[in-house]
């Protein structure tokens, strides 16, 4: 299933920015929610191949030649290869041949992952989603620290002035560590879509600087990792590359990435990705992912993987958002919004409000500097709230991903049926409660 942004035409278009939105007169953008349309679940001409550790490069190349590969790309981080097949070659047939080779450890389709999105815009008083989870009390306790880095694997972030890309206006002093672009192999993970900037802003958009909106962990540092392209699409190979980069990243000899945000997902599962996630968790990194926007009783991958905190979305009434996937793999819910509702009566639909740039101007004109504050709905928008909480908990003293998960789950506000249920998981996250921890009896 594919998500597509559709501009609201004359429906809700209050105003469209023509340049950088001024601080005094922020531009408001309305975007209608994404629609779904059938799409392939994996790249029709690619497979991922993992070779046994004893296999040489020559053996790998020979295996690729035997199945008629036209191109083979070795991972920058390990012994897996992205093999591009000749036009018209059947992926299942290629996989069958590869799996029969003794030097091949595993072979799988290169599944497609997509951003879970749908946009809109403006300011803290419109950030109902922060109030819903008690953000102000949270900030009394903990605001995060630059020593804790949250890696955002997404479409990139508007975090630097580089070529046609511009740094978004409301980052304030939010530090960014060296990023990675899996498509170019460079360290310039600039956002050419809008989604990653919006997601990252929920985590660490600057606060108390009198402009724009705020992130939940505005003291944290961010790592931009571009694994989704300008259309918000990527593959499991790309995601694994991004995961490995974040896992291996060091600053002054220290591994500083403590949380990975995956506001993306796809169909099926991927050994390539689960192995990378296992490695992340083993190194003390908490991985958080979006449940998906199909409104189905099935949590998307990688959120469905047991080591990942799967996040669904609720609206301002603490009701499950109609698009939010649910099911046995769902762990918690966070505000993801519903653009059909205005439960806080602020004249705006209840999307998650953060800074980003106009996706329309980016797509049509190649401009990445038309910034504004956008209301967006989706489990993509719910997920960074939880990633931010994980980062806050880490800095408060909970250093283990399993314990962080338990702290988030055990302090969630129980919604729906008593105890954990498939609609809300353990319930709506309550960061202040999680940060308070436990006394003897309270």
């Amino acid at each position: 299933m594919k998500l597509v942004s559709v501009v609201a035409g004359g429906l809700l278009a209050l105003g469209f920015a023509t340049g950088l939105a001024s601080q005094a007169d922020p531009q408001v953008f309305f975007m209608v929610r994404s629609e779904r349309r059938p799409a392939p679940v994996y790249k029709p001409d690619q497979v991922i191949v993992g070779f046994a550790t004893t296999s040489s490069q020559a053996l790998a190349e020979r295996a690729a030649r035997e199945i008629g590969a036209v191109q083979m790309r070795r991972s920058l981080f390990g012994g897996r290869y992205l093999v591009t097949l000749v036009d018209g070659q059947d992926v299942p047939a290629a996989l069958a041949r590869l799996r029969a080779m003794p030097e091949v450890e595993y072979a799988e389709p290169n599944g497609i992952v997509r951003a879970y999105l749908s946009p809109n815009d403006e300011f803290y008083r419109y950030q109902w989603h922060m109030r819903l989870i008690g953000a102000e009390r949270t900030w009394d306790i903990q605001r995060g620290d630059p020593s804790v880095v949250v890696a955002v694997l997404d479409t990139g972030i508007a975090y630097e002035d580089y070529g046609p890309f511009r740094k978004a206006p409301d980052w304030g002093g939010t530090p960014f560590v060296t990023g990675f672009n899996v498509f170019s192999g460079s360290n310039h993970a600039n956002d050419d879509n809008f989604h990653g900037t919006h997601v990252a802003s929920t985590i660490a958009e600057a606060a108390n600087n009198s402009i724009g909106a705020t992130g939940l962990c505005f003291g944290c540092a961010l790592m931009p990792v571009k694994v989704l392209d300008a259309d918000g699409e990527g593959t499991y190979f790309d995601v694994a590359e991004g995961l490995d980069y974040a896992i291996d990243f060091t600053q002054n000899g220290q591994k500083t990435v403590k949380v990975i945000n995956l506001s993306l997902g796809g169909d099926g599962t991927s050994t390539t990705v689960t192995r990378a996630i296992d490695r992340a968790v083993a190194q003390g990194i908490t991985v958080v992912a979006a449940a998906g926007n199909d409104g189905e009783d099935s949590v998307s991958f990688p959120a469905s993987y047991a080591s990942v905190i799967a996040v669904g979305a609720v609206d301002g009434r603490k009701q499950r958002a109609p698009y939010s996937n649910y099911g046995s793999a769902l762990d918690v819910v966070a505000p993801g919004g519903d653009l059909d509702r205005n439960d806080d009566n602020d004249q705006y639909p209840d999307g998650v409000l953060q800074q980003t740039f106009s996706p329309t101007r980016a797509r049509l004109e190649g401009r990445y500097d038309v910034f504004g504050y956008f209301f967006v709905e989706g489990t993509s928008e719910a997920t960074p709230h939880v990633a931010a909480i994980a980062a806050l908990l880490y800095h408060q003293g909970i250093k283990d991903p399993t314990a962080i998960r338990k702290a988030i789950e055990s302090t969630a506000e129980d919604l729906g049926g008593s105890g954990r249920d498939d609609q809300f998981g353990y319930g709506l996250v309550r960061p202040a409660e999680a940060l308070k921890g436990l006394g003897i009896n309270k």
Partner: protein
Amino acid sequence: MRPRHLLAAACVAALFLAKPPAASAGGFAIDAQGGYFSIAAKDSAEAVLGSSGFGTFGGGLSYTFGKGIFVHAGVRVASRDGERVFVADPAGEVFKLGHPVSFRLVPVEFTLGYRFGRFGSFTPYIGVGGGVTSVKEESTVAGITEKESQSKGSGHARIGLEFGKKALRFAVEAQWSTVPDAIGVGGVSKIYGESNVGGFTILGKVIFTTARD
């Protein structure tokens, strides 16, 4: 062997070894006491307070009847400071979160006891009783203080050895107490499945008495 088992064995031994008291006029006594208290909710206390041991002090008033039977009423305070933590499961690591916590127990105890005959300057005694224990927990998180206090019924058994013949005497005493269902509904005590804030206490006492043995 657990402290309460040691205490029970000591009580049985005292019953066999001690001789009955000589007839006496009886009288009042007051005491000041201090010592060490080891709480039964060991894991919870160690996680939050850093130790399951508390310093304790207090005082009491007793009356000894002519045939060695005595009644005693006493109150003590045991408190310790720590910090709030997070524990995912009973076997899991304890993560300290830095928010201060203070935990205080105030047992008020009534004891019915028996004083054996004197061995030289030493007088052994035993007692059992019940009372009420006040349990108070207070923690401050980012400027907001939360308090929780409650009182729970308690039971105890004790054995002691008093030294001296005159008005001023000294004693050492071992006590086992139980205060069930005092904790365990939240916090780390729920995770560890601990609900009893009783425990084992070793006390030293300074006694001023009007009794004549």
